[in-house]
């Protein structure tokens, strides 16, 4: 685009980095929170504050529950447009039953995929799920939102915009731009190794912002690159649905070949058959894993073609000790319990793919690595945020002189996505503690109310940000930053306090009992409060010093 290659790379980094950086702040922040999504679920749903349990008896507990699971209104609505005619009141033919446990989740989630009669595409299924307490089989009330795994996590990979998967596409585009920003950033950064440890807070705002931007970007460069890359690999089938469109015939042929090779029938036989003891199958699977020297727990259990003569049960080992997700699948004939197939060791390509997806999806049991992941994610947030700050600092004097409001708008957007996002997150947790146990009739259910509080708080924070960044148009520091930092400091103390008041689980109790999911969440918020307070004070001091002469303008990418 420009005669000089480096100039083009810098232009791309600045402008696409700015535009998508706003989205990436959200992706990185909620990605960091998602490392501990199940722990946040425990904080949000006090009824589930007990220890993780092994997979309970399928025959005695899970099978009777599976038979009663039906899709709720939202799940029915998802397929309403895909049928000719009305949906039945009750779905009877279950394609599959699935259950999976993790070492971090006390509750167990059951999934059922039902055949949809009159569906336009015969592959269409309607999905239902239920969360139970595995100690008793009692279901979690439907209106409890799993704020971690059911909101923050989907926010991370799809911005919760499910309509035509638009949210997935926005996040995917942002991830591609993240890769671009990393490559162009390295190209722009002339002294990348020499300045690896450089941070000069005593120099101009622009210099110190750029130093932090470079430091947080380069120190965790492999992390940032691999997470953006593997995120795209995980959802590549959404962005490039080649094998369901252009190469669909090839895909279908492969499925038939595979069904013959593996002995796992692709279609139902059409004749009913009873189910043998799945508990016995689980024991056999565990015996075989132990015989291979990899004793383990069941991670994922699936029953395919439920109730049919062609039905089979697949049991996978939980991959807590390595990066790959579940593996070592063993498949049993559902009606007799005989072993149909033991999955062979994975191919090299399969192992590479499992490594890449597994390092992103994190089913492993390793607390240090999880916390290091959070550090990496927050470093990514710092990198993006300081990039935004640098953009504003560099241009605000120039824009003030020209009477242009570009820098002010970017600063307002930065307030929205940096501090505004934190305000919204904390408000949602506060609302979670303050809302009544079940909403009165006529009100949206509790989980929806929590979401409204999140989005409403974010909207308010962005309005406040727009209003209180006016001084940027005169090249001054926006008071919005300090004000929102103070709000965060307050909210991050109120939330743990409310946790104590409404559940009795104060820090002395949770730390004393070693119940780290809740203790960790409270401690994280309190630490955040201290940092927000320090930031607010620092901003106040900087504003007082601002009377001095303006700092010289720095070119990013020039020494």
């Amino acid at each position, binding site marked *: 685009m420009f005669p000089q290659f480096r100039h083009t790379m810098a232009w791309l980094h600045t402008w696409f980095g700015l535009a998508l950086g706003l989205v990436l702040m959200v992706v990185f922040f909620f990605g960091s929170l998602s490392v501990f999504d199940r722990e946040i679920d425990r904080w949000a749903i006090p009824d589930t504050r007990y220890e993780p349990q092994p997979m309970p008896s399928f025959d005695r507990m899970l099978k009777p529950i599976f038979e009663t699971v039906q899709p709720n209104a939202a799940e029915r609505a998802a397929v309403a447009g895909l049928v000719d005619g009305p949906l039945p009141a009750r779905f009877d033919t279950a394609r599959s039953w699935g259950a999976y446990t993790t070492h971090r989740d006390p509750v167990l989630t059951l999934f059922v995929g039902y055949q949809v009669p009159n569906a336009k595409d015969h592959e269409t299924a309607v999905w239902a799920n239920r969360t139970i307490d595995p100690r008793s089989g009692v279901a979690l009330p439907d209106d409890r939102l799993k704020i971690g795994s059911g909101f923050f996590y989907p926010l991370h990979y799809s911005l919760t915009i499910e309509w035509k998967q638009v949210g997935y596409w926005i996040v995917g585009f942002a991830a591609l731009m993240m890769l671009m920003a990393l490559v162009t950033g390295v190209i722009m950064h002339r002294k990348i190794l020499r300045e690896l440890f450089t941070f000069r807070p005593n120099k101009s705002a622009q210099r110190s912002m750029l130093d932090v931007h470079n430091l947080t970007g380069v120190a965790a460069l492999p992390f940032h690159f691999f997470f953006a890359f593997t995120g795209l690999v995980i959802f590549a089938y959404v962005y490039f649905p080649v094998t369901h469109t252009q190469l669909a015939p*090839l895909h279908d042929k492969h499925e038939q070949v595979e069904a013959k090779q593996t002995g796992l029938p692709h279609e139902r036989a059409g004749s009913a058959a009873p189910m043998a003891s799945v508990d016995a199958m689980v024991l056999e699977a565990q015996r075989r894993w132990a015989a291979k020297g990899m004793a383990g727990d069941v991670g994922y259990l699936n029953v395919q073609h439920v109730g049919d003569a062609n039905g089979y049960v697949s049991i996978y080992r939980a991959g807590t000790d390595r990066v790959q997700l579940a593996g070592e699948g063993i498949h049993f004939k559902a009606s007799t319990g005989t072993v149909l197939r033991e999955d062979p060791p994975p191919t090299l390509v399969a192992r*590479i793919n499992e490594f890449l997806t597994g390092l992103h999806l994190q089913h492993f049991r390793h607390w240090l690595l999880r916390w290091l992941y959070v550090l990496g994610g927050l470093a990514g947030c710092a990198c993006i945020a300081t990039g935004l700050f640098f953009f504003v600092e560099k241009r605000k004097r120039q824009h003030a002189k020209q009477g242009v409001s570009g820098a002010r708008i970017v600063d307002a957007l930065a307030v929205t996505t940096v501090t505004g996002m934190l305000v919204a997150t904390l408000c949602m947790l506060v609302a979670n503690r303050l809302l009544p146990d079940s909403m009165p009739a006529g009100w949206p259910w509790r989980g929806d109310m929590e979401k409204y509080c999140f989005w409403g708080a974010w909207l308010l924070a962005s309005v406040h940000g727009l209003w209180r960044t006016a001084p940027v148009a005169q090249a001054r520091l926006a008071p919005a930053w300090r004000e929102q930092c103070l709000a965060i400091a307050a909210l991050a103390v109120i939330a743990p306090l409310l946790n104590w008041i409404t559940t009795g689980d104060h820090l002395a109790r949770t730390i004393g009992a070693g119940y780290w999911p809740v203790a960790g969440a409270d401690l994280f918020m309190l630490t955040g409060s201290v940092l927000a307070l320090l930031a607010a004070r620092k901003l106040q001091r900087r504003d007082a010093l601002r009377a001095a002469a303006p700092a010289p303008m720095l070119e990013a990418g020039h020494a």
Partner: protein
Amino acid sequence: MTSNTLTRSHLTRSHIVARTALALLGGYVFTWGVIAAGTALMYGAGMAFHDAEHLSYIIGILVYLGAFLAGFAAHKLRRVALVLVGGGALLSAGAWLLQQQLV
């Protein structure tokens, strides 16, 4: 007369739009071609289907990154458009032909 490389004063909105479209959409077409051809070729050569698919995705994403950068870095707009869009179309056609043989 259009200039393909610019000074700041020539950075028109239409040029930026053209470059962005080329890099994003042209890059997408090229990547689709790489993934389709890669999947069909590797499966045809005996690799397991999902392995061929996943390896093509892994390579494809890196290809998309490169194509995006090339869309902006390349001096001649028309040439890189030809390579990305034309190349992508050719690769997709090749994949389709190969599929006819395999199915």
